């Protein structure tokens, strides 16, 4: 469910692109420092966005420093100097979310897959627990999300809104903590809710085929009462509806976003909200076969998120 919130690279200025990359590298670095080298595997673009937003809202900015990445030993890279607010918190969010996801996958799958997930569980659990020690609210948010999701999938009349609610609420809680100002927290809560909802919906649209094949829960399949195989006509109908829902959610999200007082990074964040998210939608809607995912990561020679 990760990787939909990313910038439209072609529209970034070079220095903005480098800033984006520096923040990406900083989260990777913070993950390694706080939660162990393995946790860097869970790095992803969505939380890079969260970090950018958190850094944009805070008064002080740590500045940059050069470093050498183990994955690319011959290039000097820039990253942010260590700071004690946004980066550790966002890293905590990353590992908590990934842990929740693995636990959720165990419940969902059976056979060999379940065994594989079970093997990764102790690794994510370790990092997840550490994150919980630093930020006690995170494991609560994530386990609530898992429980509510399971419950809502059992309801026979759960619509799109109800199905998206658990993810939306979890993100609302996480984003809210990026600020200490009560007014900003209200905005961030609304923003996070809609962001979580948007991610949930686009992920569901992206997974139509897989869910149909494997019998997984998908709110769109249920709403349009689809039975295999998915006809071209039905797919277009679902995509049209999904596109409208994503657009409405995105517009409402942008309205909340515009009320935030950003101290830096405005162009990059604007790019993600207004261009990057639209691009992600196009990517999902034009992708015929999910397996043929573009293998190249966003940050050219960088490994795509999740790969060493």
């Amino acid at each position, binding site marked *: 469910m990760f990787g939909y919130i990313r910038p*439209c690279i072609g*529209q970034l200025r070079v220095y903005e692109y480098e800033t984006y990359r520096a923040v990406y590298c900083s989260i990777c670095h913070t993950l390694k420092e706080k939660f162990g080298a393995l946790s860097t595997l869970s790095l992803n673009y969505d939380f890079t966005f969260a970090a950018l937003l958190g850094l944009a809202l805070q008064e002080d900015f740590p500045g940059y420093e050069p470093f050498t990445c183990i994955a690319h030993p011959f290039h000097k890279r820039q990253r942010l100097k260590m700071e004690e607010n946004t980066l550790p918190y966002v890293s905590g969010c990353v590992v908590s979310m990934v842990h929740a996801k693995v636990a959720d996958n165990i419940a969902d799958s059976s056979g060999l897959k379940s065994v594989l997930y079970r093997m990764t569980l102790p690794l994510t659990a370790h990092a997840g627990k550490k994150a919980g020690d630093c930020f006690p609210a995170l494991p609560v948010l994530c386990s609530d999300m898992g429980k509510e999701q399971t419950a809502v999938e059992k309801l026979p009349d759960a*619509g*799109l*809104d*109800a199905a998206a*609610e658990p993810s*939306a609420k979890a993100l609302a809680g996480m984003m809210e903590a990026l600020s200490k100002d009560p*007014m900003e927290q*209200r*905005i961030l809560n*609304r923003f996070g*809710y*809609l962001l979580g*909802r948007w991610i949930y919906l686009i992920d569901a649209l992206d997974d139509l085929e897989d869910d149909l094949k494997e019998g997984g829960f998908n709110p769109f399949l249920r709403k349009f009462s689809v039975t295999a195989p998915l006809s071209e006509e039905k797919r277009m109908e679902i995509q049209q509806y999904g*596109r*409208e*829902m994503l*657009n*409405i*959610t995105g*517009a*409402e999200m*942008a*309205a*909340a976003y*515009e*009320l935030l007082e950003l101290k830096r990074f405005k162009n990059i964040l*604007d790019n993600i909200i*207004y*261009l990057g998210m*639209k691009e992600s939608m196009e990517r999902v809607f034009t992708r015929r076969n999910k397996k043929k995912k573009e293998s190249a990561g966003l940050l050219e020679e960088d490994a795509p998120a999740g790969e060493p």
Partner: protein
Amino acid sequence: MSEKDPYQVLGVARDATEEQVKAAYRDLAKKYHPDNYADSPLADVANEKMQEVNAAYDAVLKDLKNRKSGSQSSYQGGYSQNGQRYNQGYGQGYGQSGYGGYGYGNSQYGDIRRMIQQNRLVEAEELLDGSPANARDAEWHFLKGTICYQRGWLDDARNHFNAACQMSPNNPEYRAALNRMSWQSQGGYGAPGTGYRQTSYGGGRHQMDACDCCNTLICADCCCECMGGDLISCC
């Protein structure tokens, strides 16, 4: 709220010209336009922003006048005819456009409207859900839609606004709510007609390209043909 630098609020440099200041103000006023935040739980925040921007605009214009005349005392008069606010309606529309003054119909709905306004969504919804299914009219659907909207349940919200408009096609309030959602569903931001975020950025898919040019010509040709003329003779 602490005093903010008016130049910073408008996002202009200290040596900005009057045109630049006005343009910056116009953009901000479009962004925080009450229509963009109608039915939103953040309407009050947007309103506060708008007032901040208005105050900053007045302060900066005053400052500009000062600089022009070079004296400290002359700014008292004068600036107001030049410095007219972009639209006096901004920042005043909140609260009035939506919930104020609706005395007609069931008085129970008046209470529910008030509750929604005070952000007592759970209570309001309980009251609404308590009314029997056959007594649910356009107003009921509109209010239910508003509650869904505030909660972020945008699919249900659209369905209820739709139902409200079907039952009562001439009500401008219901129509505005539905129009805003259809505008957004087509990829628009804010409310239709506020001009918010149409000119800025210019990137993405909105640039004029060769295809647009052909499309425009073909459209023009079709229009001409409708009226009996022809623009492109071969089609």
